[in-house]
């Protein structure tokens, strides 16, 4: 609809930075997983999800992100979020994501973390 979803990504040292644009529903969640899997197959273990251009999510989309966090933990990696709109930060908190993934203000902060 208005928010045609898009995902971009890049390597930055040991990190893969995945940036989303638009509404994160189930289909968008699947696209993020695809992107994530590509990096995992390249032995990347550390991920930053930049949600700056996402204003809305739904719980199905976010539950797919929870699966991503699980997989990251299995491979002994890390996943952090940055640039969360207040409502998305709140949703993540309610859904418990913030217990397993760190939330940073900016992408730079996320990349600077060890």
């Amino acid at each position, binding site marked *: 609809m208005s928010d045609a979803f898009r995902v971009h990504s890049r390597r930055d040292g040991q990190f893969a930075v995945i940036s989303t644009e638009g509404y994160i529903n189930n289909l968008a969640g699947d696209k993020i997983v695809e992107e994530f899997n590509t990096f995992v197959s390249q032995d990347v273990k550390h991920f930053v999800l930049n949600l700056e251009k996402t204003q809305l999510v739904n719980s199905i989309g976010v539950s797919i992100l929870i699966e991503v966090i699980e997989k990251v933990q299995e491979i002994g990696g890390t996943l952090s979020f940055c640039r969360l709109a207040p*409502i998305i930060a709140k949703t993540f908190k309610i859904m418990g994501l913030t217990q397993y993934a760190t939330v940073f203000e900016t992408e730079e902060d996320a990349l600077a973390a060890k």
Partner: protein
Amino acid sequence: MTIPKKVCLQIPMLPDMELAATKTAEEVARFMQFATDSIDEIKMALIEGIINAFEHSKSSDKTVYIQFDMQDEELEVTIQDYGTGFDASQKNSIQLFQKRGYGRALMEALMDDVKYFTSPNGTKVVMKKRRH
């Protein structure tokens, strides 16, 4: 007659149609001078109520009926489907890493009041948000 402070919206169960409803919610809440954060909370709760009807209601008219009641100090949002209903007394609490089942918990956390009226003839969720 006084002017009914009520906006009604019917949407088909098509992917992303919940976004049309969030736009209406946004205008209504802005009209009522809700703060931006509250508006976003209403939109998120509305999305969850609508996708539940999309996913679970098995309604044969494939339509969700939404009503926005602009009251003095609060907005009442009603989401109705004519599906098969469910047992609303069985409530999840959120478990770590659970796969699904966050919708109702989110609505309750984001709104000031959420009530379910559900029967084999359908489900109605009535949610309230105060302006503060």
